[in-house]
């Protein structure tokens, strides 16, 4: 609105309203774009997983639970980290599973005929571009918590997040994405990215978010408070439920996610 220039008195009668209209449209468009969720790799990966039908067998969000009477455990593996770890040693093998429906055999013994699954893993190489594969792997990584080098406090922080159900709203591994009508962006923020940087300036603010459900800085800002109060899902205040140790581990995990 500040950019609106006042035209010459002659043309003012028509140009000014036209300019005003254009500016208003531009501003609304910009605002709409600004409020759109960030299209992060894991979010794109989730869409791809849905498109490829991954959840049909691996369960919603890869949580498992679909029967395969042919397997010794009688269940199609979930994407839970420790389960996935018994199928793949590294991310390359995850890619092999997705593309070829099998990882390369680890040894002679592994090649030996065991029980054959009734529902074998399909090969998706014909249905995926390289970029899509990477997005899918990023989503898998978020769901499984798959990481070779996650240090001790960060790992324990992830366990705290799992236990308190943080990922239910903030998405697997805090990748965001859950809808929140009435909120500024319409979604629950991720634990990384531009929006996080806006909402959380330092550890003090991060603590405030977790313990009180908002930060003092935003609460005192009238516009921000408008959205905080209007949003359907409000960040709960965990002050009474989280120990200092758990809080520190959680913060260590969020730090690790952002440094990664």
């Amino acid at each position, binding site marked *: 609105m500040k950019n609106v220039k006042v035209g010459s008195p002659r043309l003012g009668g028509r140009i000014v309203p036209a300019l005003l209209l254009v500016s208003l449209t531009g501003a609304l468009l910009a605002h709409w774009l600004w409020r759109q969720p960030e299209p992060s790799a894991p979010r794109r990966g989730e869409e791809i997983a849905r498109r490829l039908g991954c959840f049909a067998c691996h369960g919603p969000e890869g949580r498992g639970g679909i029967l395969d009477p042919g397997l010794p455990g009688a269940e199609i593996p979930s994407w839970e980290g420790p389960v996935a770890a018994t199928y793949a*040693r590294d991310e390359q093998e995850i890619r092999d599973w997705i593309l070829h429906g099998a990882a390369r055999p680890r040894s002679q013994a592994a090649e030996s005929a065991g029980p054959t699954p009734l529902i074998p893993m399909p090969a998706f190489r014909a249905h995926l571009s390289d970029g899509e594969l990477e997005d899918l792997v990023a989503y898998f990584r978020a769901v499984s918590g798959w990481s070779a080098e996650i240090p001790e406090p960060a790992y324990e922080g992830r366990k705290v997040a799992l236990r308190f159900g943080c990922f239910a709203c903030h998405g697997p591994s805090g990748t965001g994405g859950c809808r929140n009508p009435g909120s500024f962006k319409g979604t629950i923020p991720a634990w990384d990215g531009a929006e996080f940087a806006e909402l959380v300036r330092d550890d003090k603010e991060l603590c405030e978010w977790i313990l009180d459900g908002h930060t003092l800085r935003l609460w005192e800002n009238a516009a921000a408070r408008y959205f905080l109060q209007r949003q359907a899902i409000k960040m709960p205040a965990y002050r009474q439920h989280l120990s200092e140790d758990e809080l520190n581990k959680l913060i260590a995990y969020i730090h690790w996610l952002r440094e990664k």
Partner: protein
Amino acid sequence: MKALRCLLALAGVAALPVLALAHLLRGDSGPVPLENARQEPVYRSPNHICLSPDGRLAAVVNQSANSVSILEVRSRKVLEEISVGRHPSHAAFSPDGRRLYVSCLHEGSVDVVDLEQNRVLRSFQAGDEPYGVTVSADGRKLYVANSLSDTVSILDALSGCAQAEIPTGRSPRFAVATPDGSRLIVANGLSRSLSIIDLGAGRVVETRDLGRASILRQVACSPDGQWAFAAGILSHDETLPVQVERGWIHSNGIAVVDLARPGHRVTLLVDRLVAGASNPWGLVLSSDQRRLYVSLAGVHEIAIVDLPAALRLVQETAPEQVKALEENVEILERRKIARRVGSGGLGPRGLALSEPTGELLVANYFSDSIAVLDAASGEIRSVIPLGPPQEMTPWRQGELLFNDARITYQGWFSCASCHQEDATIDGLNWDLPNDGLGNSKNVKSLLDAHDTPPSMWSGVRTDMNAAVAAGQRFQGFIPDPENNRSLMAYLGQPKRAPNPHRGRNPESARRGEKIFFRAGCDTCHPPPVYTDLRAHDLGLGTPDDYRSRFDTPSLRECYRTPPYLHDGRAKTLREIFIDHNPKNFHGRTRGLAAPEIEDLINFLKTL
């Protein structure tokens, strides 16, 4: 003439190998060839000594040299050295004194030595890792404590036929028959108890709880058949190991049990207030029941116990006083019940009492010698070397330090007090403060430490060097660089015992190997060391653990190291898969049929 010269030359050529052979046979007395000098010296490592029924001869079991030395007691001379099977541990004479039965730990057999021909006549099949061997009074039966099979074998002394194999507690080490021959008292090395076997019925009739006893060694029965005595450590694994002094971590003593009163037990410590009596091992009684001798392998001493005074104390101890007495490190000295004397060498283990000469013979493992002590005063009369003096290699020095309580504050314990003399395990959970308090962890075998960093379940030590240094600090001293070097040499080149499970069930193990890979076990336990050296979360952590991930242990020698998992919650390999893998994280073993689990276990035991 020419023909004669030819003949002489031929004779010379023929004589060469004969001379060379003679040179080799001369062994120690001749100059040592250069290539032999670089070889590992052969130590004798006397582990046990026993006397012939007439008291004239003593047989010494040389554990490292795979031999038995026959000594004449009066002349103190080594008469003969006889080769036997690998890693002999213990021996017993037949009542007629013509045969010697030698248990060979690494052969799974009992060698029968003929003492007229001085050679092994036969080898009887026993269980896995037979340790103690006992002959019945009539000489017809052998009782063999199979320390790895957790059984006692009863063998026919003439034919070697197995008549029975009786399950006992864990790792039975020694057994002694009561004088009337009706019962056998078995000291269980790793289960804090004695197994009392009724020999008529051929089964265990009582498992006598010994409280905090750990790493039990020799057991003896009083000549009147009323009492049994067992030497061992008292491990205070119930509390934090934070105070060495006054025996708060380990104290050392003898358990005294009244065989006629089921459940009776009184433990007398042979420690002193500021001087622990680390690692009681050998135990022998005088036939008049006046004295009891205990070798203290960690502090290189012998405790001489005034038995009537000790038994008076035992009898006046009410059941509710047993626990307090078990913690009293001053009682024996204060009441002048026991005194301690030097053992005349390093690492005293087996003891023999020669009553006609009034001498106590002590097998000093690390000195390669037998010390002759005055049985009354404890004065050293003589030391009999079992072979030429050998320089100690760093490995051997490390083995000594591992068993030596002199590197612990006030000599309360040695490395071997938790890891046994072979650097393995004591089967207990200890709450070391290095990973937070209130979360006991199962003792790990150190044989895997050198090539599977980091150390400890929580991985708090980056490698074995850090762990060995931390161990020395735990023992109360700043790590000594030279000691560190020796301990690293010893633990860095572990000499593993042969695995008796290899080749036992080849078909089953082959099937088990396929299951191992199919179930994804190799994800975290990849060959050749069977660990990926990383920490994993199998959902086994408790809130007390402060962490969810634990260092993946190597699977090598898992047949030797129960219980399993970081807090020892699985008593057997089977329990790991049946009871402690509900979410199928610890390998995809859910849905495996019972025979498939058996195959998998048979494979794991071969590692």
